[in-house]
């Protein structure tokens, strides 16, 4: 611990309290609401930078730990900490938060203080999810997040928002109940709710399989994986832009994070037994969902399906270790897959966030997301299209953008695990390019065919700043991923040892 103040608590509670403040102070005064929110979000991001600056690369132990009893009767603790797996995700959250607040600046007309407040609170809760080391605390954050998101979609959403919110809520709620039951079972076994104690807890095969499946349901819904993915396109379509950004950039990552924090270390034997299930679902996500994305007529739906497809690389990369050990006898190559999965999460945070923001820019002007309503946007918005094409290329996994890094690593690693995994995963090169660039062609290029497009204005300064920030992030990570990798190495190595050490 190099910092003297509780940095993680600050990152959780500053935005939550700030959000509440915005709710009250910003009432009837939009300017105050906006600026206060931006200051809170910006401050949170700045305060999160020491996490990286002071991060100890040499250890897989939790860092910046805060641990105090919360409900002593049940040994529930207020227990926070980060390692190389969660720290980048915390930074991704605080970073995205700033952009999200900035993105809502002009397009939200009614009750902006509630909107901004909800997003700030969400930001704090999400940091809580990624830093909680007590399972009950984790669960509280995990579920609490649904509320502001539910409100955001339900209140500022599109015409079918009730359907979408209920679907969203039910799916995720349904998933997490099983997770809670698992926590309680393990508490009963170990006498502790600490996640690190769960890691060390010996479990029998049956128990492991049940717990693994319970986790799988919870995380698969969140990521989402086939076949529990259908809530996501609906939620995205109905959600306002900022909601989509948070959903795609951060909330989906919670599922992936769950696998590395819970499933692999807690139930290594069950993971080994059932890795085929996750791998199969991941490959379905990459190929099948990609083909589904191709025929979407709504831009947001298309990008939502693309998100699911890209998250397939995350889950694929995480579960390759067992097949690699089985076929080659060593773990060499597994780290590449696991780190690829982690990089893919960060990169997807940037790219999907950027894509949804780009769609938001168009939606603010045209109030439609139908691909067929557009054509030749480039003629009116050249700067915007420059960014949009860059993000599209990142989505396609072009080397030099962040989208390439994770996909490349996971493809190499999966090829090592099994030639066919690699082959199917590599199909994304074709499918991903097809759905993304076909949309690019229809929306951005071509002649201007209707007067709505004719009247489009290019990005204003605020939008330009948001797009440019993300563009820099996407290119920087693509050109030089080494710094991010270094953060993860020790923790990933430790995780792989945990995942391959039997608990029986």
């Amino acid at each position, binding site marked *: 611990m190099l910092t003297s103040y509780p940095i993680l608590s600050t990152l959780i509670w500053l935005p939550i309290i700030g959000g509440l403040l915005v709710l009250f102070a910003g009432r009837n005064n939009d300017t105050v609401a906006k600026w206060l929110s931006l200051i809170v979000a910006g401050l949170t991001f700045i305060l999160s930078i020491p996490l990286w600056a002071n991060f100890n690369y040499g250890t897989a132990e939790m860092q910046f730990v805060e641990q105090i009893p919360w409900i002593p009767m049940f040994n529930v603790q207020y227990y926070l900490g980060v390692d190389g797996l969660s720290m980048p995700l915390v930074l991704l959250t605080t970073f995205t938060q700033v952009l999200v607040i900035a993105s809502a600046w002009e397009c939200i007309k009614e009750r902006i203080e509630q909107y901004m407040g909800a997003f700030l609170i969400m930001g704090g809760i999400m940091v809580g999810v990624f830093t909680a080391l007590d399972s009950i605390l984790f669960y509280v954050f995990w579920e609490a997040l649904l509320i502001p998101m539910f409100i955001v979609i339900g209140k500022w959403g599109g015409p079918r928002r009730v359907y979408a919110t209920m679907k969203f809520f039910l799916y995720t709620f349904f998933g997490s109940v099983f997770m809670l039951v698992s926590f309680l079972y393990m508490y009963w076994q170990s006498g502790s709710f600490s996640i690190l104690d769960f890691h060390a807890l010996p479990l029998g095969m049956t128990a492991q399989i049940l717990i693994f499946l319970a986790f799988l349901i919870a995380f698969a819904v969140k990521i989402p994986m086939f076949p529990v993915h259908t809530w996501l396109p609906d939620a995205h379509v109905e959600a306002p832009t900022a909601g989509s950004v948070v959903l795609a950039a951060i909330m989906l990552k919670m599922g992936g994070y769950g696998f590395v924090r819970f499933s692999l270390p807690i139930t290594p034997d069950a993971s080994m037994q059932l890795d085929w299930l996750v791998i199969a679902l991941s490959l379905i996500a990459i190929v099948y969902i990609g083909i589904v994305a191709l025929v979407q007529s709504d831009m947001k739906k298309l990008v939502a399906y693309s998100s699911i497809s890209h998250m397939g690389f995350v889950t694929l990369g995480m579960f390759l270790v067992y097949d690699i050990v089985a076929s080659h006898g060593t773990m060499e190559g597994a780290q590449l897959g696991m780190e690829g999965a982690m990089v893919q999460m960060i990169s997807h945070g940037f790219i999907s966030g950027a894509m949804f923001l780009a769609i938001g820019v168009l939606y603010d002007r045209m109030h439609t997301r139908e691909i067929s309503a557009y054509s030749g946007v480039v003629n009116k918005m050249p700067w915007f299209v420059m960014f949009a094409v860059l993000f599209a290329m990142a989505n396609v996994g072009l080397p030099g953008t962040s989208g390439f890094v994770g996909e490349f690593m996971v493809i190499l690693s999966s090829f090592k695990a099994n030639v066919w995994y690699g082959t199917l995963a*590599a199909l994304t090169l074709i499918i991903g390019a097809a759905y993304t660039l076909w949309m690019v062609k229809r929306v951005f290029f071509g002649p201007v065919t209707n007067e709505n497009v004719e009247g489009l204005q290019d990005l204003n300064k605020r939008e330009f700043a948001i797009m440019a920030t993300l563009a820099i992030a996407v290119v920087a990570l693509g050109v030089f991923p080494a710094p991010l990798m270094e953060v993860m190495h020790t923790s990933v190595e430790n995780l792989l040892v945990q995942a391959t050490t039997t608990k029986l």
Partner: protein
Amino acid sequence: MLHEILTVILLAPLVGAMIAGLFGRQIGRAGAHYSTIAGVAISAVLSFYVFWLYVFQGATEYNAALYTWMVSDGINFQIGFMIDKLSATMMLVVTFVSLMVHIYTIGYMDHDEDYSHDNPYYQRFFSYISLFTFSMLSLVMANNFLQLFFGWEAVGLVSYLLIGFYMKRESAIQANLKAFLVNRVGDFGFILGIAVVFVYFGTMDYKEFFAQLTTQKDVMIEIIPGVEWSMITVMLILLFIGAMGKSAQMPLHVWLPESMEGPTPISALIHAATMVTAGIFMVARLSPAYELSEVALSVVLITGALTAFLMGLLGLIQNDIKRVVAYSTLSQLGYMTAALGASAYAAGMFHVLTHAFFKALLFLAAGSVIIAMHHIQDIRQMGGLKKYMPITYWSMLIGSLALIGFPGFSGFFSKDSILLSLQATDRFGADFAFILLMMGVFVTAFYSFRMFFIVFHGEESEYVKTHKIKESPLVVTIPLILLAIPALLMGLPMIEPMLNGSYFAEAIVIKPENDTMMWVYNNYFHGALDMIIHSFVTLPVILALSGVALAWFMYIKQPNIPGKLKQMCPRGHYVLENAYGFDRLNEIVFVNGTRKLGQFFTRWVDVKLIDTGMVTNTFMAIAHSANGLRRTQTGYMYHYAFVMIFGLLGMLIWVLW
């Protein structure tokens, strides 16, 4: 010092591209072309220095990292340089042709009236071609597979942007999408090839990869259970699939003719001189590996030969001036590929070099014609242009003679070394390939001079008679002249070191028993001049000259013959007209097939099976009650929140107690 020079060579065009691309409005048109030309000129001059250092001074191979991209799993993923005679030569070709194209573009774009002038499309164009130069340099300078793939995809990106440069034109944005996707099919194979390298060699670095070849060459892999394949062969064929995409070999050639939608300068630079030869370069670069697999080399050989002949045939019936040149590019790429397949890597690369100059020359000359014709590209509307455009005429003649392999011209030497090497090899498919390439020589001569006669000789069309046709400005003609010089002369001094292997030296590795070029050198070669003199009694030159003669006869002497031929065999014409049906096949099977599949999945699996089948029954009930709930509480957002928080807490407490 060399390291810094190389870094500057690589980055100077990137800097130029960024200045022109990001600050195009501020610096204006002149600012854009000066900044990009400066960048590329610096690269070109320094590349010339490096070329001199390596090819004339015999400097030793330079292999070093620029920076470490990342480290994972103990593997270094680096960006770096491997400079030897092969890459030094390519660097010079890339930067020189690029510089010529940059200069030429000033004249070409100035006459491009398609675009409104408020849009900084001019700056954008310069930014793209400089970006392309950077990407291509990073490809040829790479010392590892990662960077190779980076350059590979980056040139693909720029190609995509430039084919679709006229973004309002539907055909252009259709063509660029197609180009990208077809290339991605190739890259699919390519990345799997890289994955094989990763799995069996555990490195991305060329040198470490080569070093392990001897120990790994007998490894077998089982992709389909029960069937064992040589790992090396699988890897090489996968990598070659990538080359088939980028270098437009059948059946992944379909994107190249349509890439002509892009402005002519980039057709010269990207789709003729440099990018499309990336696949050839890659195979030559990996010659130590390709030498180990007869099967892979046979695949390369046959693919190349088929492309060379069949694509040449399509050139016969094209009426768009750029398309004629495009099909000739396809065909010539086939020659290069076939050379690789015969282990004559140096001959393939030799043809890459000569082709880069004479084909860039042909394209730019065609562009000059297009400028004069006010962007009409149909050769039937031209005719008799010789007297209006003398410089263009002579450039085109030199380019065409080089293309058909007229004795003494650069293309003659490179094409003859390919044909001779093919004769010398006994690899599976070599005889078949040799016959195809021989027939290809005749076809090449015929379609090249068909176009040449129609455009420059022939009768003046109505358009030519009624419009004022004039020679292009100096910025256009000077690059033509500068390109015509190497197209004419470069073969003569290079043929000997190419054949006896001293040109590329260690950069290309050939097993002694496969070294067909050396065999040719020992058995046939008695000096370059002797080669020229003797060639007049050899089959290739006779075929080429008869092709020219027939073209003259059919299009100048008896111009009614082609129409009659068309009537006589309509079926043959139909097949050629439809380019053997590849496009239709792709459209029906892949494009529509996938779209149908997607629709089926969406409608039946996602909506019917999952949403309706799995979810709705449970969901509808709750949705209804929630709807009721919402109605009673409209406007009170917090109630939701409170109900949910307390609900959750209640549940927690209930569970815990």
